[in-house]
């Protein structure tokens, strides 16, 4: 692949890969169980900040700081967000949103010598040099996460998550512990978020609270998952690539603020047209083509 495209396009694909990882992480929890998380930047941020602080301020090599960051993300998310899983529906969304805002405020106030305060941290050690190597790493990560999740979702665990999204009470009625299931889903989601966040921090080389704990970032993640198709593996990846490439293709045509306007508008229309996402649109197109061939309706 890298041989056939321009380096600039590779960079765009790297961004898309990372967004796809974040969107898949969101989807494990929210797309399947219906517990909408507005606090995913909170998890990604913990992963990114942990590895950045460990490697930059304490000189821990990335091969240790990244796994540590993932563990911290899972642990931190568990301690902080798990109580929220008691809460249903829109309230869950709100409490996770509150956590994101809280984190944004705290990162700046508490130990700014470590977190870099509002300016964030720059000069985080890069794992790769050049677009090709960065691309290979990002694609490997994305496909690895996708494969792992795909295998996991084929198990009874995956089916049970779906069932929670459909009707939590009947799952509980059938004797399964929904709390255990939700906790598992949450841990998997946090693992992927921590992994993505940590590698992303090493990729961009810099991070700032305004870029991470931000409603725009949250917006991009959720929209990628939903535009692509929530509750699937391919959907969030598809959505991420679609959105990132849409933004980059618009750049030379609409360099200024119009770009975000068009981008948001396209997302809104697509989502309103088919809340199940591009995957569902593609499926219905395929069905229609097949349907015409067999011509059942006539």
């Amino acid at each position, binding site marked *: 692949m890298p041989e056939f495209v321009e380096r600039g396009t590779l960079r765009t694909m790297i961004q898309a890969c990372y967004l796809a990882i974040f969107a898949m992480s969101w989807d494990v929890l929210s797309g399947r169980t219906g517990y909408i998380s507005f606090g995913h930047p909170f998890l990604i941020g913990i992963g990114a900040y942990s590895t950045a602080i460990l490697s930059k301020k304490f000189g821990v090599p990335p091969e240790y700081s990244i796994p540590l960051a993932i563990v911290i993300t899972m642990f931190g998310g568990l301690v902080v967000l798990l109580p929220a899983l008691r809460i249903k529906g829109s309230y869950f969304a709100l409490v996770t949103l509150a956590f994101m805002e809280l984190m944004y405020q705290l990162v700046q106030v508490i130990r700014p010598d470590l977190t870099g305060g509002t300016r964030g941290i*720059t000069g985080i050690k890069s794992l790769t040099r050049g677009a090709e190597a960065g691309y290979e790493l990002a694609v490997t990560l994305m496909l690895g996460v996708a494969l792992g999740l795909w295998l996991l979702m084929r198990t009874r665990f995956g089916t049970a998550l779906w069932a929670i999204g459909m009707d939590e009470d009947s799952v509980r009625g059938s004797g399964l512990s929904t709390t255990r299931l939700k906790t598992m889903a949450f841990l998997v989601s946090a693992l992927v978020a921590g992994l993505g966040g940590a590698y992303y921090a090493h990729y961009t080389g810099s991070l700032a609270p305004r870029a991470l704990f931000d409603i725009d970032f949250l917006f991009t993640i959720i929209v990628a998952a939903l535009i692509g198709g929530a509750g699937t593996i391919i959907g969030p990846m598809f959505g991420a690539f679609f959105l990132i490439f849409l933004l980059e293709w618009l750049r030379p045509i609409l360099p200024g603020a119009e770009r975000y306007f068009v981008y948001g508008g396209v997302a809104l229309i697509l989502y309103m047209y088919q809340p199940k996402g591009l995957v569902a649109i593609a499926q219905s197109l395929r069905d229609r083509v097949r349907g015409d061939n067999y011509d059942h309706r006539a």
Partner: protein
Amino acid sequence: MKLRLGLIAGLSAGLLATTALADIKVGFIGSLSSDTGLSTLRGAQIAIDELNDAGGVMGQQVSMVTADTGEDVIEGVKAFEYLAESAEVDFIISGSIDDVSLGWMPRMQEYQIPTLDTWTSYIGIIDMVIEDPEVMAPYFMNIASDEALATLYINFGAEVLKAKMGFESVVILAEDTAFGQAITGLVTDALAPVAGIDVADVIVYDIGTVDFAPIFSKAQNSGADFIYQVSSVNSQVISSQYVKLQVPMAMTGVNVSALGMEYWEDTGGAGGGISTLSPVPSVGFPLDPVSQGFVDTYQSKYDTRPMIPHFNGFNAYHGLKQAMAAAEAAGGFSDVAAWNAEMLKQDLILEKDGQLWLRYGFWQHGEVEEVTGRTYPQNARFDLTSPYEDAQPSMVVIQWKEDGTVGVVYPFEYASTEFELPSWVK
């Protein structure tokens, strides 16, 4: 219909610009919808037009590609990648704000594309140049760094606030940002020993603060003679509430929103009495003929805001020409070490009435500035001691009067008006 025609015209203009024989490509990185970003963009565009009219650089025409950051850190990283790898520019001119510059810095280090920052003044970046001059060779900052700004401000404290106004103590009102912390630290360390003004209290506030009434009450209770504000984010809120509440104390300091001529219009006049330090050339700053010529061209070419370019517009205009001159001497931009050496040699002295007025030059490696006792390699040259014979002062203090005029109040050599208390404080 009109919109569609406009779009097509814009599209084809864009296509023409890229397909024309443009051999030297300049990339602009910054916000395309802020006064800050537009100042740099237009300053650079005017310089490019003038270079092209004069036959181009090294016999080649110069063209510009823009990349919008929306003042967002991640968008800034993507914008830099776009300029470097999709547009493949030779040189980048930046109107980024501090954290956006810090965001794309690792990319600049990786791509090694000559880059000139015209707005970011963070001393931490100059420290990076000192630490690793090789990796930072492509980077130049042609605005005096914030440490230099704050240092000269102390003299304003001694010569105006203490000597003329008789202020003995200050309460510092600083926003909770890295910028706020840095300036607060510099000012608190030096005000008492150098200017003889005691710091009664330091109040740090959250940048999302809605209502400043309790904070101003706290400041008044400190018993200080005046307020020193440090605000770069949402700075219009604190200053307009100061005016609306008619807080009975003088307030001066750093207020980034008051740096452009649009301040008066944006605040609807609710900003009289506010004074702030400003990089040079500020609003209300008397201009030398060359810089005035730039402003005239600017105003004949653009009729939307900012009506007068901010300081970084001047930096971009002069800086871009210097970068091109350096490239001409170094045989292009590709040999970064050679370009860096030539860029360091650039030195433009602008005179007004036979006196040095503005100087666009750079501090060399190892060259120690006397007042602060440190080096500022690849940073804009500035002067911290009157009578400013080596370069212009690192900053001036400007004040907005209640009738909507604005003028420089310090240093006296550059002053066009006097520092006054707002009418409700007198």
